[in-house]
């Protein structure tokens, strides 16, 4: 069998897409999550429902959206509503199955910092802040994170809880009363981290050609490996064709 070449972005998009289920309702961001959703829709999840934070349901963009509020998301969509409605009627009401999250730091328990490096009142690096992620992390049934695997991005503890994963683990998350299940997977260029029964992120799958030591070297805590840790299947020809030819022919995100 001939080897198939792919880059790290493609690898992450493909693995994220595979986590989505048919009929999932997904809160989509732009960029990599948007590609993952559209790839899933064109492969195993034709009935995926995409919602954009800007209030758009059922978008059929005629081009790759470059911002979360791209006009091409609106034209030809099934419904558009206000920002208050999207956060109440959809997200808080429990109509969202999957949310995608990102941030400068993700810690051992899947908590995310997208707010500040250093002291909040005297910031060393001021980041964009929550946007919708505080609520998405709390109220979507499942959350996924897609991020390059680098030690500075995976500290043992985040400087600031912009949105929560499993806090300090155990029942810390459920005792806050949030409705969603929290982060179910972190897809990186090295593999996939998933929470164990205590809410700690452990290496649950590993990409072809990567070994555990690579992952540990790029993680800020003593990384565990799940008992059933398996290699992921490499992106297949069809997945790559869709990504490259249909979804992002200008190679903006891949």
């Amino acid at each position, binding site marked *: 069998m001939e080897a198939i070449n792919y880059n790290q972005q493609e690898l992450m998009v493909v693995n994220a897409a595979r986590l989505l289920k048919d009929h999932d309702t997904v809160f989509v961001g732009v960029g990599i999550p948007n590609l993952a959703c559209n790839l899933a829709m064109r492969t195993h999840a034709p009935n995926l429902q995409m919602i954009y934070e800007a209030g758009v349901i059922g978008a059929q963009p005629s081009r790759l959206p470059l911002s979360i*509020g791209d006009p091409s998301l609106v034209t030809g969509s099934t419904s558009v509503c206000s920002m208050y409605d999207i956060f109440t009627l959809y997200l808080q009401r429990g109509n969202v199955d999957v949310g995608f999250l990102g941030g400068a730091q993700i810690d051992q328990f899947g908590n995310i910092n997208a707010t500040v490096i250093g002291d909040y009142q005297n*910031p060393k690096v001021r980041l964009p802040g929550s946007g919708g992620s*505080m609520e998405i992390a709390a109220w979507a049934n499942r959350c996924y994170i897609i991020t390059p695997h680098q030690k500075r991005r995976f500290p043992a503890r985040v400087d600031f809880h912009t949105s929560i994963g499993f806090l300090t683990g155990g029942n810390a998350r459920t005792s806050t*009363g949030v409705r969603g299940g929290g982060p179910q997977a972190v897809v990186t260029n090295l593999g996939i981290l998933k929470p164990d029964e205590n809410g700690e992120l452990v290496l649950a799958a590993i990409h072809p050609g990567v070994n555990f030591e690579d992952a540990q070297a790029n993680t800020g805590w003593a990384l565990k490996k799940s008992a059933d840790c398996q290699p992921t299947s490499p992106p297949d020809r069809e997945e790559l064709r869709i990504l490259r030819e249909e979804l992002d022919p200008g190679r903006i995100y891949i």
Partner: protein
Amino acid sequence: MTKLCALHEAVTRFISDGNLIYASGFTHLIPFAAGHEIIRQGFKDLVLARATPDLIYDQMVAAGCARKIIFSYMGNPGVGSLRRMRAAIEGGKLDWEEYSHFSMISRLQAGASGLPFMPMNPTGAQDLAEQNPNYRQLQDPYTGADVVVVPPLIPDVAIVHVQRADVNGNAHVWGILGEQRLAAFASQHVILTAEEIVDEAVIRSDPNRTLIPGMVVDAVCHVPFCAHPSYTQGYHDRDNEFYLAWDEISKTEESVQDYLDEWVYGISDRAAYWEKLGPKVHQRLQAGERLSEPVNYGDY
């Protein structure tokens, strides 16, 4: 009774130094022309509230108009960070008050509704609430569970761009709605900028499309292309090239000053700005046509 007036006149009449301003629009309909006019008129000590400050507030901060920002996501959407605002905060030169999107919009919902607070379900994320005393907790009187609340936001002036309005300020809005309607109802005064001023009969042909009623509007300004480099659904596209360019321009105070000199201080109004952009940009941003299927209201 017409409320039609020039944008510079509306800004002069309804805005004062120190005001709390909400220039609304979530990625769409962002009233850049009004922001530029505020810069030109040299207002100071403004409190600038917006869920997503976007380039417009980055420019206003750079121009020295603001003493504080109230926000929930401070980024250049799809590009990166807002460098001037970030530098001002990191340098201790700008006060700020921060929310998540939902709590920011809940503040507007409370303000627009005349309510003393809006409840929200807990998110488990305590760090921001610890820094911002406007977040409070209540107990659900039915179950005893925790509920987070935020107080109303009542701006002095909202600036709201819309697609079409009549001279009384009744406005049709479509596409991404963001917080347009809430900002208008929450605020003490509303400056409405419109892509088109239409006959009242156009508005009355589709009353369900009127998201902002004239009764809450103080001034109606005819400002085509008001939203550039953001966009107005059906009128022109988002100028993504400018969003990328700003990432470069905003790297230094000097290049920002040059930009403001050329594109804000150096021109008189939005018409001049649009002309200066030139035909190539005009063409690149054309919207094309996809019309809505009409509905019948019945001839009752």
